[in-house]
């Protein structure tokens, strides 16, 4: 069952890639024209002719293209508030800390500081939300996305040949599959001392001290 699911998944993946390829290809122009919010005129352009050092020097010494400081949140006003910063409530903060298995703030001041840091960070990363990414396929990992690699990684009966050869069909009226039960030599992994690196242990157990949550 698991095997079948794997091959179905592989097939879905390749179909999804094909679908995504079409809009991607045609969207080369709009995708690059994020210039809606940036300053340049002509998106990705390579100067056709080699340029002289003087020209490049003049370009570099004239107008900088942008400022990283533009990512920083504006100076805070007296209330410690900034206008366009995403708001995170104290309740949300406590929820996020719980999700992260981190301790809650020790004081009101610490809580205020955490909220302010988080909202500064969110302002900093908020810039990329303005980019038009419609039709863009997310880049989740750097991996071979070519058709050849897709094919190499597709799980087929050939890939599973070794595993399948260890199965045999038994039974006459009720045929079923039985796995080859010859012992596999796993001594190199089974010699691992599971408790070897544990700081607190008792006998063959890890020790965790905690209090039961109150009912």
């Amino acid at each position, binding site marked *: 069952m698991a095997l079948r699911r794997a091959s179905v998944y592989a097939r879905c993946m390749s179909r999804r890639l094909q679908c995504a390829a079409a809009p991607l290809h045609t969207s080369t122009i709009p995708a*690059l024209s994020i210039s809606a919010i940036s300053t340049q005129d002509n998106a990705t352009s390579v100067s056709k002719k*080699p340029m002289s050092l003087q020209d490049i020097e003049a370009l570099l010494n004239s107008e*900088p293209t942008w400022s990283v400081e533009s990512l920083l949140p504006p100076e805070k006003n007296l209330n410690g508030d900034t206008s366009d910063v995403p708001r995170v409530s104290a309740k949300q903060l406590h929820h996020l800390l*719980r999700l*992260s*298995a981190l301790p809650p703030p020790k004081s009101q001041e610490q809580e205020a500081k955490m909220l302010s840091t988080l909202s500064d960070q969110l302002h900093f990363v908020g810039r990329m939300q303005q980019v038009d990414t419609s039709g863009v396929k997310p880049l989740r990992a750097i991996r071979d*996305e070519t058709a050849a690699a897709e094919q190499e990684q597709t799980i087929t009966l050939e890939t599973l040949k070794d595993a399948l050869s260890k199965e045999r069909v038994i039974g006459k009226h009720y045929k079923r599959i039985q796995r080859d039960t010859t012992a596999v030599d796993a001594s190199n992994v089974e010699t691992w001392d599971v408790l070897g690196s544990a700081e607190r242990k008792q006998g063959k157990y890890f020790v965790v001290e905690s209090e039961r949550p109150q009912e």
Partner: protein
Amino acid sequence: MSLLRHAERQIANLGKYSHLNAFINVADHESVLARVAASAESSPSTDNVNARSPFGRLIAIKDNICTADLPTTAASGILKLLKSPYDATVVKQLREAGAITVGKTNLDEFGMGSHNLHSHFGASKLVRGGEERSAGGSSGGSAVAVATGQCWAALGTDTGGSVRLPAAYTRTVGFKPSYGLLSRWGVIAYANSLDTVGILGQNVESVEGVFDSLDFYDPQDPTSLPPSTRSRLPKQGSGGAKTLKIGVPMDYNISTLDATVRKAWLRSLQLLQARGHTLHTVRLPATQHALSAYYVLAPAEASSNLAKYDGIRYGSRAEGKDGIPDSVLFAKTRGEGFGPEVQRRILLGAFSLSAQAIDNYFIQAQKVRRLVQQDFDNVFATPNPLMTSQPEVDGEGVDVLLCPTAPTLAPKLSEIKGQQPLHAYMNDVFTVPASLAGLPAISVPVHADEGVKAATEEASAWSGMQIIGQYGDDRVVLDLAKELFESASPGP
């Protein structure tokens, strides 16, 4: 000079520069020297001759890479006593090549930082002109160890610039290969889709020599590039013989670019043009959004990767009861074990992965990451070997890009100690784009002025210049780095 003589000097420097805090743990000096002596004896022919081979050389290992002989702490309180039962693949490969590990270098906790200030074991730093300066992060200890001759070369890791930035600040060479070429098995994950093992050295040859020993498929690392894909990558670089088209990305000319760095940039272009290469301006518009996207993706992956640290099976635990009605189980251990910057990033990551934010933050950042990759594919003459549909490169593209590694020279520690965390994030603006696209990139030291003697204390005016190549063009990048390094080096 013989291998043993080199090693003795490096061991002596360990004591001389111990105040720079480059190492967290150091191997026993006597046994290191005994091993070098044994290497020199076993193979007298390689003694003293090879500038590239790691055989019989002392190599420092960043302390987020597992070694069986010395603890691996990732500069975190939660792993301060961790002893790995095995060597990382890259360490194993170096040992097989005859290298000798001299110690484990300081870093920003789990690789999170740009100045090496966020270490459980105290900052690693530079001293120049009597002033303490940032060593850069996160592989600051590796960079300082190389810069002060405490080892022959060092391994670092580069997630968003963690090898290149310290190299730029310390006047060393720092190389981040294409993502997936070097094994990550046994390397403590920070942001796994970006993490790359990198190499630091005093020159390009030593960096290339280490790279040659590590550039192999590892079946234990699921993100290691498989042999079939490797066979499609170019085998050779330019060998220094070919005329290259060098792209000058205008989007790296930001308003806060230090005048000295801009000068060094122009000087590098001039030196390479004098060697027959041609210069072309290029635009990479998504650069302006790369930093924001990176600081969504890296913390999100970190919050997931660091969820496993609870001090139960390994690592250090908080004293007393953990898990009381007010505080969830393991929160006490994690609160005490992780430093403040790590906790900030875990929290930010938890936010961008939460149900209400994942589409607008995490997924959007992955889409922007694709645009950054397309930007590069649009300007390079070589098509991206990982992609099927390629954008039409208008006319011809460029072979490599040349830009600064960091907007400024190494800042003074006194200036950055009180800074808001966000200010440190801005140091990564030039290194993050190549990380997002997984491209090979190297930082080479270049002085802004001609004719500076190596020995003068002008050392603080050396900038890092970054050469970025198309995915898999690691050899092209290394070959041009050699040319730049050679022509920028002061004469004898």
